């Protein structure tokens, strides 16, 4: 039996627009604010510095400076190839972040497209898309990725992003589908239908803006989650080549117990960088999440 919505309407305050709420929420939350600043600082610095750095120089093997401790020449010492860890950290941070960004972006786009289609049309469309998603989810992902990595002839950042995207879009699609499913039952969608608005317009201009906060929050949180993504693959030996240094490359040098125990400068800064990036993105994401959910808002 359907229950009447009844009269449980609260008289609402005139509330500010989305961006303002987000900004206010971040301002309220010192942690989020600090995180945002930290994040911005790191990114500006890293992208800026990496731009001026000579990638070749960083990758240059130098036997005279193997495993040097941090010094004024090498701020963070060198690795077993005599390569500057600091430079690798900068470029690695940039690479890891860029990878994470693009994976998140592509998964968002794919997940969004399929999620919206499945959610909006429901029925057979939904069924087909959900079966595909179920299938991809049932794949043992890490194992599959390892196999794929061994198959692809060329393995670089783009290929990596592509492979990860293939496996990671499903979660988003599911999330957005369920939101879209509930959203399409709302009368504003019905209204648009009775007003003669074509489906594609409804999906793009009515549905999409209403799942956007969900997407943004999820995007940010995934961005944090995806930063460490390549590190475990690198650890297993299926990561990107060392010529494309990433945070994972530096961290997985710690596989060698000698490095882990005695050469902290190689892996600790990268680990901290991952931690700091993930946390600060995450904190910003949490604040956004609160902003998106009126019930949790602090202000």
């Amino acid at each position, binding site marked *: *039996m*359907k*229950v*009447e*919505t*009844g*009269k449980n*309407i609260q*008289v*609402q305050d*005139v*509330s500010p*627009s*989305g961006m303002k709420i987000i900004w206010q929420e971040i301002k309220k939350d010192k942690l989020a604010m600090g995180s945002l600043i930290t994040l911005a600082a790191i990114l500006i610095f890293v992208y800026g510095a990496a731009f001026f750095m000579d990638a070749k120089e960083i990758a240059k093997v130098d036997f005279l400076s193997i495993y040097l401790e941090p010094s004024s020449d090498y701020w963070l010492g060198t690795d077993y190839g005599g390569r500057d860890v600091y430079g690798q950290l900068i470029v690695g941070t940039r690479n890891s972040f860029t990878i994470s960004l693009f994976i998140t972006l592509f998964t968002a786009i794919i997940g969004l497209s399929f999620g919206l289609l499945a959610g909006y049309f429901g029925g057979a469309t939904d069924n087909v898309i959900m079966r595909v998603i179920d299938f991809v989810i049932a794949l043992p992902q890490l194992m599959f990725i390892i196999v794929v990595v061994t198959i692809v002839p060329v393995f670089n950042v783009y290929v990596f992003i592509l492979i990860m995207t293939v496996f990671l879009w499903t979660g988003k699609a599911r999330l957005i589908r369920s939101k879209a499913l509930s959203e399409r039952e*709302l*009368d*504003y969608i*019905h*209204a*648009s*239908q*009775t*007003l*003669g*608005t*074509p489906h594609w317009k409804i999906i793009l201009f*009515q549905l999409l*803006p*209403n799942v*956007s906060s969900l997407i943004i929050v999820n995007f940010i949180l995934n961005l944090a989650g995806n930063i460490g993504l390549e590190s475990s693959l690198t650890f297993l030996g299926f990561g990107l080549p060392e010529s494309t240094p990433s945070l994972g490359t530096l961290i997985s040098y710690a596989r060698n117990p000698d490095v882990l125990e005695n050469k902290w400068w190689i892996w600790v800064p990268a680990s901290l960088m991952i931690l700091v990036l993930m946390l600060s993105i995450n904190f910003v994401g949490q604040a956004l999440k609160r902003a998106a959910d009126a019930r949790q808002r602090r202000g």
Partner: protein
Amino acid sequence: MTLLKVDNLKVHFPIRGGFFRRVVDHVKAVDGVSFELQQGETYGLVGESGSGKSTTGKAVVKLNDVTSGQILFEGRDLAGLSRKEIKPFRKDIQMIFQDPYSSLNPKKRVLDIIAEPLRNFERQSPAEEKKIVQDFLDKVGLSPESIHKYPHEFSGGQRQRIGIARSLTLKPKLIIADEPVSALDVSVQAQVLNFLQDLQQEFNLTYLFVGHDLGVIRHMCDRMGVMYRGRLVEEGKSDEIYENPQHIYTKRLIAAIPDLEPEVRGEKVKLRKKLTAEYESSYSKFFDEDGRAYDLKPISSTHRVAIL
């Protein structure tokens, strides 16, 4: 003049189940409903929750697929039309939704909300469009500056008026109002009801008014139909039905309306008890073995009842 004629309308929703999610049964949400709307009148549909009122209304605007039956709008059958074919009729038939909160896209400004139908049917310059929207806002009693606001910046009643303005922009002939006030506080409800009446006069609108509050229906409607389990059990002039209900379900429904006069409450309790007893004893007079109401039979020129 008959604007809308619904003839033996059936809307069945499939229930899926079993091995391959085949359709095993149907919810007969609307199961053979027929009524007519004259130009300029307000026709009410009442009934308890789940009786198929909304489904009927939505079928008319093609939000639901019609299983069988005809929906004749100005003599043309809408039931079998495809999405494309239906588009021209969208201008003529509009809908007002129950919940003013969910029926307006929270992410859109009022301008975009009200202009949406215009953009679908007519090409206008932004300035013209703005002008039209502001005119309508004025008609529904909202200030022209409102176009840049978002729905959440309005009260429930104001929002409902925005929804109404949106449905008016295409100058429809028929408006389906699905419980347009049941989400509103009494005081706000009054505002919207008054306003709907004003518009009807101004634009010579025809309303199909769906509701469960008999006070509201009686207040608004010239004629009404009482629905029960997907079927009409009684139809006629509002007064006829209130003063002289014939079907046992209608009687119970009316007896259940709380009365504003505290003095009569003792009698009403007794009346309700009596009707409950009657309902049980005379069940077969009103329903067949399957519990389905009989077809409507005229008992006067305007009044029809589903009895044996």
